[in-house]
């Protein structure tokens, strides 16, 4: 796989674009009036982000689970409270909504919000089914409102810079991708009363959840698409419930292989009964490897080392020749034993991916801030919806492949003009 051209990658890097156009769009004290749909753990995380964004004002909260609604209400005195999101959408004082609800609710809520003339920010993944994703994509194409999905890696500086390195060819041609997410936790939440099981533990049931692929893999596949500048053409995989046999329906162990048209593959693995390997987004190049999740790269060849090795061989062979090792290299060009190089200087945050709710400074704050700005200016953020669509479709295709034990090709009916293969 060659490396995508500068223009294409910059275009998919709103973080870079945002810095470039910052000056033109200063906000003059306006605030985006936000209504929150869903105030559970991720909703409260998002609420906290919003409360720290100067150009945002949370004016309404909605949840149909009273304890979560009251917890959020305590943080935003004066916010209007709703139990039915339809009612919130009728509220004329709301410019935009932030949706943090179970996956099966994304499509109805996003579509209703767009229909009600609201700007929309919704958690990933895009939706529970491919049909729903396509319906959202079509509605987004029709509306003049801004639509965001929480593709926060697109707003995470270390990804943008790492991808810039790949784009510069510093790690050679891309020949493989290995992404994984390991945790040792059951994903289960305490349920106060049995009839709330499916509502609170929605992640565990197929009706409301795509399991590890949509909850975790989605972010990582988005990165792979971003790096490749195109999408895989087929997927195969194996999924099982290996350890958490507690009545759940979604896999707790997935191994998936996506193939690009040129044979480059994404190996995706997630397991939630062992956390040894943590979370990594490794891009493998002919000259080196980068883990975008940690902002660290390793080079394949160590030229200094190889010079010295040549010298040792010479002595063994009783030969005398020049050692090719001199050059200006105050900085380590390469190191033996694959000692890591940091990509990024400065204030960079790396998270181990162990939190179910979200990590600090992972780009979520930046994308939320960008959304609130867009609500005020009406300026759409390029590619966020498209990337969310592509990544979610890939997740759902993997589930189809695992459930059907078959190789699934990318379906024609879900291709959009944005995609390259």
């Amino acid at each position, binding site marked *: 796989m060659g490396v995508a051209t500068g223009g294409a990658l910059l275009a998919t890097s709103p973080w870079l674009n945002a810095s470039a156009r910052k000056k033109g769009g200063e906000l003059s004290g306006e605030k985006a009036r936000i209504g929150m749909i869903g105030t559970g753990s991720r909703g409260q995380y998002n609420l906290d982000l919003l409360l720290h964004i100067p150009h945002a004002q949370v004016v309404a909260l909605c949840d149909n689970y009273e304890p979560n609604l009251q917890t959020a209400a305590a943080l935003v005195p004066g916010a209007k409270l709703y139990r039915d999101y339809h009612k919130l959408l009728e509220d004329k004082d709301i410019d935009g909504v932030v949706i943090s609800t179970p996956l099966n609710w994304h499509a109805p809520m996003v579509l209703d919000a767009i229909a009600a003339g609201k700007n929309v920010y919704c958690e990933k993944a895009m939706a529970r089914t491919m049909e729903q994703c396509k319906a959202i994509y079509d509605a987004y194409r029709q509306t003049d409102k801004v639509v965001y999905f929480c593709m926060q890696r697109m707003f995470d500086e270390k990804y943008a810079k790492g991808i810039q390195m790949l784009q510069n060819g510093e790690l050679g041609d891309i020949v493989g991708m290995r992404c994984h997410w390991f945790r040792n936790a059951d994903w289960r939440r305490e349920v106060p009363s049995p009839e709330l099981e499916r509502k609170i533990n929605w992640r565990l049931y197929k009706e409301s959840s795509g399991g590890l692929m949509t909850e975790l893999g989605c972010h990582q596949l988005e990165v792979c698409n971003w790096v490749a500048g195109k999408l895989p053409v087929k997927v195969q995989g194996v999924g099982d419930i290996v350890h958490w046999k507690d009545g759940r329906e979604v896999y707790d162990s997935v191994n998936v292989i996506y193939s690009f048209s040129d044979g480059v593959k994404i190996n995706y693995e997630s397991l939630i009964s062992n956390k040894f390997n943590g979370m990594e987004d490794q891009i493998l190049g002919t000259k080196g490897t980068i883990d975008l999740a940690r902002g660290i790269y390793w080079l394949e060849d160590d030229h200094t080392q190889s010079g010295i090795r040549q010298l040792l061989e010479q002595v063994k062979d009783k030969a005398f020749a020049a050692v090719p090792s*001199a050059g*200006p*290299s105050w900085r380590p060009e390469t190191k033996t034993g694959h000692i890591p190089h940091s990509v990024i200087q400065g204030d960079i945050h790396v998270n181990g991916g162990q939190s179910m709710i979200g990590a600090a400074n992972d780009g979520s704050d930046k994308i939320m801030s960008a959304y609130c700005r867009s609500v005020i200016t009406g300026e759409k953020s390029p590619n966020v919806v498209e990337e969310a669509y592509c990544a979610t479709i890939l997740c759902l295709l993997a589930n189809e492949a695992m459930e059907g034990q078959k190789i699934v090709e990318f379906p024609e009916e879900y291709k959009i003009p944005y995609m390259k293969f």
Partner: protein
Amino acid sequence: MGNLVSHSEFHPAEGLFYGSVPYVMHTRFDVVMMSSAKETAEIVWEDICTELERLWHMLDRFDPASEVSALNSGAALSPVRVSETMVEVLRLCAMYHERTMGIFDVTKRDFSRVRLEGDNVSFSAPDTFLDLGGFAKGYAVRKVRDLLSRAGIEDAYVDFGGSTILGMGHHPFGDSWKVSLQNPFSGEPIGEFSLRDSTLSTSGNTPEYAGHIINPRTGAKIAGKIASTVMSPDPLDAEVLSTVWLVAGAQQRQEVRKNFPDMIASVYEL
């Protein structure tokens, strides 16, 4: 041994000891010594590692706990008492400053702001920082050479990050140690040097790392695809002068050359 990660191997048939530290002073360090006595080589290797680690933690301005960091954060406010080694380092810096007509300047601005009285150092103005990046490896290689000599090792090849290479004595099958210079932009060899009790130091920009060499008189960064080499019997002279050579003009080079008659310097357009 200290905390440095290191690797070593002894090849008895060749009477060769190879030691390497993959990461020290932000680069790597390799040494090949010719010695039939494994134990002698191992002991000197341990001493080398200890010395490298000591100097790194003293001279690294990126390490907040280093002695140079203590100076950078405190010496403009009140005098800072320093170690014997740091006194020697600063005296050497002053000497090179003078002998290069001010071109070698570890403050990159105005070395006259650095005051050394006994073992007390003060900076006469705020915003004064020492950057020993163009000094430390040469200084360390000088120390390594002394350790090797004292241990009775006569033939050795010392490579500090590719940019400072010392050849002591000669290759077992040659009359010197030969090394070729690589163009960092193309990877092509662009020069070959025979080192016999001499050090080759290279300075310049690389694709990954450009603009780190600054003319202290103008504050301007040295840009472009350019490199310099200096070969000298003294590792520290070589280290210091390779940077000076990139910055100096033709007239200045002539002047500097008078003060260092033993060195051979070149500049390469890459």
